[in-house]
């Protein structure tokens, strides 16, 4: 094949198709095991049927090694040629290794050593978490033992029930007929909030979690004064800004300007305050060009921008949030979230309802888990969230078991 007679050829290796990157190494050594550097080596690749694919030239380094890396997608023969003389050792000249396949990678991940590291890490996390919980509990104790004026929201045995039923009497005709027939409605009493007692201290960020229909919103409404409980006591220190409904009571025939005053009045601001903050509201809402148009011509995004700007102009003592909301277009969304975050990070009390546990974990330090109108757990946020997620997992497992389709 080669011009020179004394060339050494190795054509022994068949490389199976592995669909992956393969590295070849050739070590040139003297018979007494000394590396030969600066020696030219030629790699030639053939298909199994003998057809030549390509050839590469390499020069050995100071360890006598030459190296080539390439992708192989079918079986190949490999021929390695070097200028031979008597000083070369002829055995085991070639070695090859492949990059690990996905399976191998997965195998490696499960390796005991790595597992050990992982478990050490989680152990550390656990320890940290427990420290946090301990710290939290101690802090709560301190707060509890302190004088009572550090309480922002206190509920004592609050119960609120709704009358529900299919045949709820809502007109006089039926009321009269039923009274005569003595067939009064079957009242089903649904306790939306059942004997809830909780304390939220000033400056605490509290997350309210629970499944749909657990009574979170009802509780928020009780705290913000929309609902009055049947039994129990609600004590609130400080003014509340409920960010539950943006633009409540907007009159569509009013201009933006008039609606700022109307909505502001509904939110409980007084006239002087609104007048002094008017420019600020307008600037934040970015609606300068439209402020004198009736809001029925506004888009829904513009409406929520206006509503948001009015609602967040106060610096409340207690902020009630149903999901941290960003409204409007991309820019305004960012701006509104920043505004909310700055509100949250200031020294006010925050009560947040969210289904995003991630958000609750990042914002709050305390969490309250409401389940079927009752407080299931109050405590350090990660602890409560973990338990909640665990319960959610179990619940969904049960449900999926039930809805598993039957095979016919």
């Amino acid at each position, binding site marked *: 094949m080669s011009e020179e007679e004394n060339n050494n050829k190795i054509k022994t290796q068949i490389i199976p198709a592995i669909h992956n990157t393969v590295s070849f190494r050739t070590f040139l050594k003297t018979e007494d095991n000394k590396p030969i550097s600066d020696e030219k080596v030629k790699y030639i690749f053939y298909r199994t049927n003998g057809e030549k694919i390509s050839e590469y030239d390499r020069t050995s380094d100071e360890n006598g090694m030459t190296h080539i890396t390439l992708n192989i997608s079918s079986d190949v023969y490999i021929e390695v040629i070097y200028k031979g003389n008597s000083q070369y050792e002829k055995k085991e000249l070639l070695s090859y290794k492949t990059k690990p396949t996905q399976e191998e990678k997965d195998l490696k991940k499960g390796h005991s050593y790595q597992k050990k590291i992982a478990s050490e890490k989680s152990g550390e996390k656990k320890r940290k978490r427990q420290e946090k919980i301990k710290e939290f509990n101690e802090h709560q104790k301190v707060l509890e033992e302190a004088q009572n004026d550090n309480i922002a929201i206190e509920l004592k045995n609050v119960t609120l029930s*709704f009358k529900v039923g299919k045949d709820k009497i*809502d*007109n*006089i*005709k039926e*009321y009269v007929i039923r009274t005569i027939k003595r067939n009064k409605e079957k009242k089903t009493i649904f306790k939306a909030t059942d004997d809830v007692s909780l304390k939220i201290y000033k400056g605490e960020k509290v997350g309210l979690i629970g499944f749909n229909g657990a009574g979170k919103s009802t509780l928020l*409404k009780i705290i*913000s*004064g*929309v*609902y*009055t409980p049947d039994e129990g006591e*609600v*004590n*609130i*220190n*400080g*003014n*509340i800004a*409920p960010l*539950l*409904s943006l633009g*409540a*009571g907007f*009159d569509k*025939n*009013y201009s933006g300007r008039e609606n700022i*005053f*109307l909505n502001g*009045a*509904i*939110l*409980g*601001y*007084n*006239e002087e305050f609104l007048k002094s903050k008017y420019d600020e509201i307008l600037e934040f809402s970015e609606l300068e060009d439209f402020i004198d148009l009736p809001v029925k011509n506004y888009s829904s995004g513009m409406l929520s921008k206006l509503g948001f700007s009015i609602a967040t102009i106060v610096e409340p003592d207690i902020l009630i949030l149903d999901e941290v909301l960003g409204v409007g277009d991309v820019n305004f969304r960012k701006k509104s979230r920043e505004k909310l975050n700055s509100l949250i990070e200031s020294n006010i009390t925050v009560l947040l309802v969210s289904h995003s546990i991630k958000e609750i974990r990042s914002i709050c330090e305390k969490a309250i888990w409401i389940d079927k109108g009752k407080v299931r757990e109050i405590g350090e946020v990660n602890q409560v969230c973990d338990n909640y997620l665990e319960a959610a997992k179990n619940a969904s497992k049960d449900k999926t078991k039930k809805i598993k389709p039957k095979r016919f």
Partner: protein
Amino acid sequence: MTLEILKKGTSENFLLKQIIRKNFTSKYKDSILGVLWSFFNPLITMALLTAIFSTVFAKSIENFPVYFLTGRIVIDFFNSGTKIAMTSFKRNRSILNKIYVPRYIFALGGICSEFINFLMSVIVLIAIMIVTQAPFYPMALLSVIPVFTLFLLIVGVGLILSILCTKFSDIEYLYRIFTSLLIYACAIFYPITMVPQPLRGYMELNPVYGIIAQFREFVMFGRFPSMKLMLTTFLFSLALFIIGIIVYRKYKNRITLEL
């Protein structure tokens, strides 16, 4: 206590003002004549009824347009005031269900905006009195007494109805029938002397009629109405006012649950 703290540092007067404004502007929002309807409405019905009845009752009623208008503006205020108060919680349920606002303000705001309407129709009354060359008596200024009584009555009835309306949805339709009956029962466009005696005694118990009668005595004839009429009307209205407040207080916490 709690609710007072909630609203600390806020002005309920400001809210009341805003609600009055809103009610007032929304009433005429899509009409070309706008607020002018407050003038035209009583004028047109007055012209119509004058054309029909002025000859029929020529003997017993001296100045039919003024006689009719005095009754009409009072009953209009009563009907529209109680109606707007009745539906006030329902109409504003989207606000009441989300934010704590003292609820009575919506009822009161509605009544106040109707009161402004009433004052505007008083202008119409004065204009008609000038046109028909009716005499003006200084005693007419005392008509603030029946107007005040009327206000108490409307607030009382309005509050009771507003609470009932959250519970029973068909109150609205029943009350509409009641108000149209009330127009006939209050001697708006016929002389009270037409009514035979035993029935007339009962009619005078009706506080709305009592107020109209007082109003006419002061404005049209410049004389003091009978003490008995004034007292019964006032006490009746006061009683309804107090009952209204008691009912409202008792049920105000259930309003948002029923909406």
